[in-house]
C-alpha cells in the first residue's frame, strides 16, 4: 500500500552517522559545517543521527587506524539495511599521507565495499553535498533492488 511512498521517501530523508576512524578532524569539521546556516543540509532532509541504528548513510573519515578498525567495522555492521557507506576525504580511501604507518591498517575498502568516495583533503562542503546527494541516489537504488 505504501510501497511507492516509502520508495520515494528513501531518498528524501537520509540520516547520517559519522565515524571518525583516526581522522585529523579536518573532514569532521567540514561535515559539521554542512549543518551551519550557510550550507544547511537539513533542507535536503539530512540529519546527523545519534546512533548507527537510525542511520542510512555512514560517513567515514580517517585512515582506519589499528585501534579503530574493529570499532568501525562493528559500527558499520550495526546499521540497518539499506545503507550506503561514504568515505570522506582521501584517508579512508587510500590512507593518504598516513600510508605505511605502523598504526594504520587501512584503507577502508580492504574490509567493506565503499559506495561513494568524496576526494579532497578536506573536500569542500559543496563537494560533500554532491557526494551525499549521490549517496541518496544509491540508497534509492538499493531500496529498489531489494
Amino acid at each position, binding site marked *: 500500500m*505504501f510501497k511507492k*511512498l*516509502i*520508495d*520515494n*521517501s*528513501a531518498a*528524501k*530523508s*537520509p*540520516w547520517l552517522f559519522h565515524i571518525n576512524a583516526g581522522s585529523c578532524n579536518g573532514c569532521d569539521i567540514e561535515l559539521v559545517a554542512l549543518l551551519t*546556516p550557510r550550507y*544547511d543540509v*537539513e*533542507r*535536503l*532532509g539530512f*540529519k*546527523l*543521527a*545519534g*546512533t548507527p*541504528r*537510525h542511520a*542510512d548513510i555512514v560517513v567515514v573519515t580517517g585512515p582506519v587506524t589499528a585501534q579503530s578498525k574493529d570499532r568501525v567495522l562493528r559500527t558499520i555492521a*550495526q546499521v*540497518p*539495511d*539499506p545503507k550506503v557507506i561514504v568515505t570522506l576525504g582521501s584517508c579512508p580511501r587510500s590512507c593518504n599521507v598516513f600510508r605505511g604507518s605502523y598504526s594504520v591498517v587501512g584503507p577502508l575498502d580492504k574490509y567493506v565495499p565503499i559506495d561513494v568516495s568524496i576526494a579532497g583533503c578536506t573536500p569542500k562542503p559543496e563537494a560533500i553535498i554532491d557526494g551525499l546527494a549521490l549517496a541518496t541516489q544509491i540508497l534509492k537504488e538499493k*531500496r529498489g533492488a531489494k
Partner: protein
Amino acid sequence: MEFLIKIVYILIFPGLLFSTVFGLWLAGIDRKVVARMQKRVGPPVLQPTYDFFKLLGKETIVPSSAARHTFLIAPYVGLVSLVVTALFIPIGGLQAFGGMADMVVILYLITIPSLAIIFGGSASASPFAGVGVSRSMVTIMAYELPLILVLLSVGRAAGGGLVTFSMEQVTLYQQLFGSFLLDWRLIPAALAMLLVIPCEVGAHPFDVGEAETEICEGPLVEYSGAPLAVFKLSHAIKMFIMTALFAALFLGGISTGMVWLDVVIALVICTAVTLVCMTLLHAITARLKVEQVFKFFWTVVSGLALVSLLLVWFVD
C-alpha cells in the same frame, strides 16, 4: 448512523488519521520555523512525513540481548494510547468522546507513551538506553508536579465555587465566561503549562532523555525501522495532543457558532502554541542538564502554577 459517526471519529477525525497528519504537520512546521529562526532554509514541511515513511522501509534490527516482545510491542502500545487520548480532548468545543475521561485521566494517559518509550528502551538492554530511561523518568517526575497544579487551578476556576475535573465543564465554563487565558489569575498557570508542554513532548531544552549527542538518543538507541518510525510518529502526535490540551484548558472559550470554524481556530491555536513554546524555545536554548531540568520544574514552574492555584483559591 451513530455508529458510523463514531467510527469516523475514531479513525479519521480526530482519531488515527487526523492526529497522524496534524502531528506530522506540527513537527514539520516546527522544524521549518526553527531553521528559519536560525537563518537557515530548513527542511520542507513534509520532512517528518518523509522520515516516517523512510523509516518504515528500513530493516528492523532486534538486538540479540533484547527482551524481544516488549521491544517490538512497546511502540505500538504507545502510539495507540496516544491516539485514544486525542479522542478525549475537546478540539474547538468538539469532543469526540465526551464523558469518558477527565483531566486527571488525561494526565495519566499521556504518561503511557512516555512509559512505552521507557520500557521499550529498557528492553533493548543497552546501557545508553539505561541512562536514557533514568533521565526520561526524571523529566516525567519533573513535569508531573507543575502539571497537576495547573490542572487543579483550572479545575477550581472552572468549578465555579466547587471543583471539577471534567474537560466538558472546563470548555463550557470558558464559553460562558471567557477564556482562562484572559483571566489574570490563571496567567501564571498558563505560563507553567507552556513550559510543561516541551518537557512532556521531549523537546529542547528539556530533551535530556533522548539527547542524541550525549547518550545516543537514550531509550531509542537500539530502535530502527518501523518501531522507530512509530516512536517518531508518537512524538509528533504528542505535540498535537499537548497543544490541543493547552488550547482546551486555556483557550476553550472561542466560539463562533460554527463547529468547523471552531475546529480550524483550535488547530491554528495548536500551531501557534507549538511555535511559541517549542519552536522558539528550541531556537534560543541549549539542552539543560537533567538535574537542572528537575530543579527548574520543581521550583520555577511549580512556583508559577502554585501562585495560580493560590490566586484562584483565595481571590474572586
